[in-house]
């Protein structure tokens, strides 16, 4: 998005510590976090002061800028949570409750079952525990932002975000971090090690490294899918319960991907990516082998990241705001 840049603007995209900039710039294009003022970046960094930067430097400047902005957002979210301590403690209890529920759920389902779809009972439990960890990561970073997105589109407040001098997708995806979900991640990791200790299951080092690497791809894929589906809210702002629906579809990731592959191809097309995101890293962990699903996971996660980005930019062109 292009914004009119005032004269005498120094390095755009840098943090400005002097509040005098407020007088120079239109306040609506400034983004304030913890009394620090962030200036507009229009992608022509360096031209104002006559210096020519190469592309690599621009990229690192941009990266550094967003990284420091994200650090501020992390701090902002944390302070926001601890201001309401009772709410924070309550949220931790609820989050731990849902995490524990996933474990109880699979324990009950497999109480009289030895295996399903080629997965032994122990492997199914490890899959459910990994689901707890990955959902903890997803909810910590993204899902609250998506709930917020549905709210702000519905109320027509997206306009304010679009006016800020930061990439809109970055801002709608990373604005809030849901700290209670870190407890869910810790719970999942603890459960995993306790379960492995009790059942005497051992995995190879390659399996562990692959598991951690593919969790990254899995979370990227889940984020891209959430972003893609939530973008539809720009056309259907009343459909705010799409978030609850996404939570439900995420629940499919608790089950083996072989089970979902039995479905009708049309349904498979929508659900399989969710299942691959959790089942593939777990397969690498429990079987210690890099089988065919890994390629699918890498291709789909990279592909969906690009598609969700393009779809978001396309949708913004059709955003009419609340007043129009």
């Amino acid at each position, binding site marked *: 998005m292009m914004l009119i840049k005032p004269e005498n603007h120094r390095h755009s995209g840098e943090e400005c510590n002097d509040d005098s900039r407020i007088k120079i710039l239109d306040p609506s294009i400034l983004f304030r976090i913890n009394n620090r003022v962030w200036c507009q970046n229009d992608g022509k960094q360096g031209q104002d002061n006559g210096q020519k930067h190469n592309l690599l430097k621009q990229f690192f400047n941009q990266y550094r800028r967003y990284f420091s902005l994200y650090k501020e957002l992390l701090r902002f979210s944390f302070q926001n949570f601890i201001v*309401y301590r*009772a*709410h924070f403690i*309550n*949220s931790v*209890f*609820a989050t731990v*409750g*849902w995490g524990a*529920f996933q474990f*109880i*759920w699979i324990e*009950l*389902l*497999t*109480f*009289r*079952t*030895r*295996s*399903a*779809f080629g997965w032994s009972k122990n492997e199914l439990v490890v899959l459910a525990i990994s689901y707890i960890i990955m959902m903890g990561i997803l909810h910590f970073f993204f899902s609250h932002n998506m709930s917020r997105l549905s709210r702000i589109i519905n109320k027509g407040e997206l306009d304010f975000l679009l006016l800020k001098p930061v990439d809109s997708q970055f801002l709608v995806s990373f604005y809030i971090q849901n700290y209670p979900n870190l407890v869910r991640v810790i719970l999942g990791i603890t459960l995993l090690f306790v379960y492995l200790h009790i059942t005497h299951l051992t995995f190879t080092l390659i399996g562990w490294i692959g598991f951690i690497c593919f969790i990254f791809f899995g979370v990227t894929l889940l984020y891209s899918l959430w972003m893609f589906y939530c973008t539809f809210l720009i056309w259907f702002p*009343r*459909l705010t*319960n*799409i978030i*609850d*629906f996404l939570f*439900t*579809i995420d*629940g*499919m990731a608790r*089950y083996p991907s*072989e*089970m*979902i592959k*039995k*479905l009708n191809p049309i349904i498979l097309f929508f659900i399989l990516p969710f299942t691959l995101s959790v089942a593939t890293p777990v397969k690498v962990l429990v079987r210690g082998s890099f089988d065919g699903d890994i390629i699918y996971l890498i291709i789909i996660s990279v592909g969906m990241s690009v598609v969700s980005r393009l779809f978001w930019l396309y949708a913004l062109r059709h955003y009419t705001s609340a007043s129009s």
Partner: protein
Amino acid sequence: MRLFRIVSLHLQNIFHHRLRSFVWFLIPLMNNLTVILFWSGAIKNTSQNAAWTMSTITTYYFLLTIINSMLNSYIQEDVAEFDIKQGDLVRYLTRPFPYYWIKFIEEIPYRILQGSYGIILIIIFSFFYKNYIIISNKPIIILLSIPIMILALFLSFTLKMNLGLSAFWFKDSRSFFELVTIIIIIFSGGVMPLFLLPQGLQTISSILPFAYTAYFPILSLQGNLSYIQLIRVIGIQCLWLAVFIAINRIMWKYGIKQFTSFGQ
């Protein structure tokens, strides 16, 4: 007649947002369809149980979806968040109806619409897969199942109302609701039928009221309960309902004294 008009007005309002309501219906449906799919692969590796076949599994989870849509109330968020915290309770206090009954009238259209989705779904499904849906065809069983379902609706509604009324004392009760929801799912047969659970959990769930809001209505419709068992279920439902209503009266009596609101 006046009550009928009020219900029909609420129904119009809810029908206006029918797509939203349909998404709410899809959520438990998706969950239950996935569990059916899981059992299709797991049943041959499950320790033998004559009562647990693919057709009983399908019937159980389909009925669970319908019963939950039709009988399971979600009024607690509404009562706690909008009425008590945001002060909407004021407009109910001035009406010539008890608060409990106004909320019940508001809840009925939701249950009608969601229940209709469920009935349409089961009709379509049983048209294509007739052998997979088993519902009792004995008139007496069906006749006795009706009061069980009505009592299940009241039981669920009163329980959720009481949860909502807890907001008179607690500033943030959302996580409390979520923890209770988890307990309800486990002990009402939301994961799997209670007879497949470990013995200890079966005993606990038969004492707690949650199984009487979903599990026993399903068993009665499937024709898995004898006449004596059906009457026993009705008796226990009445007992729990009396307990919940008594708690509701007490909570309302003392809770309303905690409530403050302002305006011009």
